[in-house]
């Protein structure tokens, strides 16, 4: 299930066509800051939207990919996760993982 979702989501992101190498050079903050409108500054959330601070980076990245592919069903995340390349997701996940 997970593997299938991964392959599917890879296809989604490749077809989105926003560059890989360039994305990695970029500071993830410009991308992660936007998530904080819902998930709280530095991923420290109040209320029912889950906190992202200190989450395991690999698990978080996988969940994002599964939201993008539809393998995991949510509300906001099934739309928002589709906006990012795999590299960008990894960078954002590393960013939130490092917030304690």
């Amino acid at each position, binding site marked *: 299930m997970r593997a299938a979702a991964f392959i599917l989501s890879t296809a989604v992101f490749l077809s989105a066509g926003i560059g890989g190498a360039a994305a990695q050079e970029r500071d993830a903050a410009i991308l992660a800051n936007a998530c*904080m*409108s819902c998930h709280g*500054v530095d991923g420290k959330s109040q209320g029912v939207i889950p906190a992202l601070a200190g989450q395991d980076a690999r698990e978080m990245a996988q969940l994002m990919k599964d939201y993008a592919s539809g393998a995991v069903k949510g*509300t906001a995340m099934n739309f928002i996760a589709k906006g990012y390349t795999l590299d960008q997701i990894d960078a954002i996940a590393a960013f939130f993982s490092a917030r304690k």
Partner: protein
Amino acid sequence: MTSLTRRNFVVAAAAGATLAALRPARVFAQARPRVVVIGGGFGGASVARWLRRTDDGIDVTLVERNARFVTCPFSNLVVGGQRSIESISFGYDAVRRAGVDVVQDTATAIDPVARRVTLQGGRVLTYDRLVLAPGIQLVWNGIEGYDEAASDIMPHAWQAGPQTLLLRRKLEAMDDGGLVVVAVPDNPYRCPPGPYERASLIAGYLKANKPKSKLIVLDAKETFSKQPLFQEAWKNLYPGIVEWRPKSQSGRVVSVKAREGVVSTEFDDLKPAVANIIPPQRAGQIAIALGLDEGKGFCTVDPRTFESKVAPGIHLVGDAIVPGAMPKSGFAANSQAKVCARAIVSLLRSRPVEEPILLNTCYSYAATDHGFAIFGAFRPGDTGLIVDIPGTVGTSPLGASAQDRALEARYAESWYSNITADMFA
């Protein structure tokens, strides 16, 4: 105010320097760069906070005319009687503690050549870069007869505060069986789904307290944001209470006679017990006075830096800009502000400007336990406008269970706590 600003504009032009030829001053490594932000709402408070969070070597001054900010988001819950105005009001103490110099005053003139802002109280501020986040102003007489005096009788409640409470009081004073009208302007206006959320929450109040009453939405458009979701909710939650009249069914309000209590569309005169008139809008006056809207009502900006296309060194975010595929929302203003703040730091520190992705979500309540949303992710497009990223724009599904609607209502609350903490905590 306008004449002073116009004079500055003329001086700049006469000096042979068109606004576009002006370049912001070079900032030397040892100097502390100075950024002035005008407007302490969703856009401006966010820019100020994110400038400091990104680089605390920058001096940030925030000019806001009011001591407290009342958010338009969640103000429809105050109109509907489901929340207090205190619960949506915020002071600037935490902004100050974050190192922002908050000045409570009104900016009345900008000299883009000398890079100076004049405040009503007489203070003059200089800047290396200026951010304008003045939000909207209402276009008085955009609907014939609807001016500031008329809004004391027929509130707009489209800038939250006393107007919100006035509309609430009128609903409370109304007898059971009364007619409520909500008049909606043509696009573009602040918060596309806002009027329909308001209609829903007023309908909730009527159903529980004045069940013989009716609400008519008079619309200058043929379609509206999240229309199927709102109409589904009206049918299920408020049958027989809410009626929506599009432009083609004489929905567009063309004039009001506030004293006589008359609201006129193209073909009908209505005499509602409570009239909520939402007039057409344009960018806040400080941006218009400087000509940053090029006569079009809203200002075009570079989507990576949010710098004006007309006046280099002056950035704009929020409702005052032409936002491309983004709506005019508090969420969008906050997302733009974060990108703008990082771009300003990059420009001041001679670093390359980063490539952003912006987000927006507009949550709406049809009742306090019934929420739904429109989502989207955006990027700078090839045409220089903000475009949506394919596959990211969509809404909550039709026909969702009551539990799912209740969950999204709770997500909306969590969003509100987090975004207001982003600015004011």
